[in-house]
């Protein structure tokens, strides 16, 4: 029984690992397609395929093993330089990658083994490996070939681990490869570790060898050869001071393990590093997100209960109790921060998935598109990552399909034939910003306007700014694609993207320049994330402003103009006129009344390029804030982005700076308009 459940768990781990390796394999293929001569990428691709084969073998998934073996053989041939892959070859490798994925999916569904592959694909792979003629020149660029500098002699000792053969490495293949790196002078096999038959495990590896190599590539070039098997061999490389005079390759009963000069030998770092990596693997465990959520909820409760305890301690006037409670509260806060951090993931993992999407879509459309990824290390909540994957996919496909032109059109327009699609992410004012930018043709505003008029979204005579026209494509059911293609334009429009983003309390904004491209910017709040907040107090109610948004704090200026609505106005800050919002009036805490003897402050905040002032009663300082989303009941409350629980157990509201800046600016615009028309208007609120 428990054996079964253990096995099921191991199987789950296998499947997750296989998926990870596949993703890596795919990435490496993409990179390899761009630069087929990059030995490092090739090695990484091989390793990924090899790992899949290895773990599949452990579970006895023969079909996967057999197929991956073929794939591996192709990569191996490429590595040996006997095979330079034609364009279609990569197609076949990508197809193979998909097939392995399909096999893994079968296994996930509970099949005892994957369906054996149709021999056709296997045959094509085998044909690829054998039929394609050897590349006339070394296909794989080695460090030696590049570093044509001065050659040096190196003495190298390699000892393979017992598992090397079982892991599919044959030490001989490394020796075969060496002449590609340099001049192989003497090779001697240390076979004293080979036991007698009785003591031998025939599948273990007992071999070690030493050789002298003259190479211009230096230590790195030699390490690169064994990089492949870095977990299966130990490498010692040292400069050979005394050039061994043509030591003939002989049967060396090596005089024991040459341990005497080990002290001088500079030990290779690689094996140790790989041990570290293995240790890291052990330190990583997979936990279901539900468990994490529950932990975070519990810790939230702990924070409140801890504050309660402190309150009781204060009421009891028991200093020892108070001290103990304070210590607990501090620890709980640390635990909370740690727990929240557990949920944060880097957005890069989502980004790289688009490489294959872009590649395939571009191929299907006959376009040449380069995907540029930046800011992949930006962290955001795991749940958020999953939710924005779909909208992102839509934007990417839109850019590939409609944005970036065919190469011929691009050249005609004086642009490079190769299109550029950029994915970028960064944190800004307590929000995460994700950008999808292309250098395509930009939006066709005339057509959008025509369509919008046709759909009755706007009046023909309505005057609209370019920017306003651009945002029209987010209107429900709006699609301007002249022809519906395979990729996008299947009825799911930008309106869905917008709805999805807004459901996450985010905003989406599009900027386009005809002929130059389109950039779509998604701004998302860091829900469930920790932010550095700035705590302020307005009439006894606590509010938090994301610290990134705070520009400066000033005393309430003596001179400021208050609008007729009594809750907004403008003031001058070093010659710049800025609008402000009086939070007391805005939230209706105590409209109009001036607190006696209290000095109000202005908190200057920024959102994008706009700065506004927020009038508050008291500044309380920085505060580490866990954002808790507001319930649905508050979905329509403006100016509030969320809430948080204070150390005291009280609640603080997190201000939605974006909304407040918008309100203040609109208020200012409305007032100017109102003054023109000679009547007073309320501020939009």
């Amino acid at each position: 029984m428990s054996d079964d459940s253990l096995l099921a768990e191991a199987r789950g781990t296998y499947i997750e690992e296989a998926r990870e390796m596949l993703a890596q394999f795919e990435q490496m293929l993409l990179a390899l397609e761009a630069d087929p001569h990059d030995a490092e990428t090739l090695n990484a691709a091989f390793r990924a395929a090899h790992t899949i084969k290895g773990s599949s073998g452990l579970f006895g998934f023969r079909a996967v093993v057999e197929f991956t073996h073929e794939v591996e053989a192709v990569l191996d041939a490429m590595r040996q330089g006997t095979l330079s892959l034609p364009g279609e070859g990569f197609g076949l490798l990508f197809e193979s990658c998909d097939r392995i994925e399909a096999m893994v999916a079968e296994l996930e569904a509970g099949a005892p083994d994957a369906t054996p592959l149709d021999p056709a694909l296997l045959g094509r792979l085998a044909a690829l490996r054998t039929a394609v003629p050897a590349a006339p020149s070394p296909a794989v660029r080695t460090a030696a070939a590049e570093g044509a500098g001065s050659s040096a002699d190196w003495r190298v000792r390699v000892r393979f681990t017992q598992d090397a053969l079982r892991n599919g490495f044959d030490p001989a293949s490394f020796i075969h490869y060496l002449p590609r790196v340099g001049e192989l002078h003497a090779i001697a096999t240390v076979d004293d570790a080979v036991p007698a038959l009785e003591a031998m495990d025939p599948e273990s590896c007992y071999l070690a060898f030493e050789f002298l190599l003259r190479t211009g590539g230096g230590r790195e070039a030699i390490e690169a050869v064994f990089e492949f098997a870095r977990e299966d061999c130990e490498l010692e490389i040292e400069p050979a001071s005394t050039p061994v005079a043509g030591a003939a390759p002989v049967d060396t009963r090596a005089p024991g393990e040459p341990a005497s000069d080990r002290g001088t030998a500079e030990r290779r770092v690689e094996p140790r590093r790989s041990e570290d990596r293995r240790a890291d693997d052990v330190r990583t465990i997979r936990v279901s997100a539900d468990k994490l959520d529950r932990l975070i909820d519990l810790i939230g409760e702990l924070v409140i209960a801890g504050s309660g305890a402190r309150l009781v301690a204060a009421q009891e006037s028991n200093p020892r109790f108070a001290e103990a409670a304070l210590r607990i509260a501090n620890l709980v806060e640390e635990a909370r921060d740690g727990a929240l951090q557990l949920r944060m993931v880097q957005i890069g993992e989502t980004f790289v998935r688009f490489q294959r999407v872009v590649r395939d879509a571009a191929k299907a459309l006959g376009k040449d598109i380069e995907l540029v990824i930046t800011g992949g290390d930006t962290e955001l909540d795991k749940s958020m990552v999953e939710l924005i994957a779909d909208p992102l996919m839509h934007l990417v496909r839109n850019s590939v399909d409609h944005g970036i032109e065919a190469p011929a059109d691009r050249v005609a327009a004086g642009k490079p034939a190769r299109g550029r699609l950029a994915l970028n992410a960064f944190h800004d004012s307590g929000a995460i910003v994700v950008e999808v930018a292309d250098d395509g043709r930009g939006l066709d505003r005339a057509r959008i306007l025509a369509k919008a008029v046709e759909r009755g979204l706007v009046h023909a005579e309505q005057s609209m700014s370019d920017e306003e026209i651009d945002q029209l494509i987010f209107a429900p059911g709006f699609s301007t694609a002249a022809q519906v293609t395979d990729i996008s334009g299947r009825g799911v429009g930008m309106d869905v993207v917008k709805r999805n983003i807004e459901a996450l309390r985010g905003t989406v904004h599009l900027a386009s320049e005809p002929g130059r491209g389109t950039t779509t910017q998604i701004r998302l709040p860091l829900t469930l994330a920790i932010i550095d907040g700035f705590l302020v107090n307005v009439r006894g109610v606590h509010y938090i402003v994301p610290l990134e948004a705070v520009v400066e704090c000033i005393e309430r200026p003596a001179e400021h103009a208050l609008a007729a609505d009594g809750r907004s106005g403008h003031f001058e800050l070093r010659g710049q006129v800025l609008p402000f919002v009086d939070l007391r009036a805005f939230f209706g805490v105590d409209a109009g009344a001036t607190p006696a003897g209290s000095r109000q402050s202005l908190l200057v905040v920024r959102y994008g390029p706009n700065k506004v002032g927020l009038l508050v009663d008291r500044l309380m300082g920085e505060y580490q804030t866990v954002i808790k989303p507001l319930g649905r009941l508050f979905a329509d409350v403006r100016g509030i982005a969320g809430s948080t629980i204070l150390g005291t157990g009280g609640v603080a509201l997190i201000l939605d700076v974006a909304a407040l800046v918008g309100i203040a600016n609109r208020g200012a615009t409305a007032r100017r308009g109102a003054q023109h028309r000679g009547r007073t208007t309320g501020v939009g609120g």
Partner: protein
Amino acid sequence: VTADDTPPADALAGDWTIYRAAELHALLRERIDGGVEQLDLSGIGDFDSSGLQLLLAARRSAAAAGRELRLTGAPQPVRALCDTYGLGALLEGSSTP
């Protein structure tokens, strides 16, 4: 050279690769325990490092029993691998097939 030295032709023939290492290991043990002093390698097809290790181990076992194991009839794959490892001397006593 005893009668034992001429084993059924195909028992040791075929590929000497990791996939057959366990099987060949058992066969070789039988031979060595049986006191052979010569192995005819001529039937070997593919030959990888696991095969080479088996030969080395077999020689060691024979040496432990006070015998020298001669390896004869090594075909090209076996010669090539031994040369790769700088162990061409292993096959010294062997005659070209």
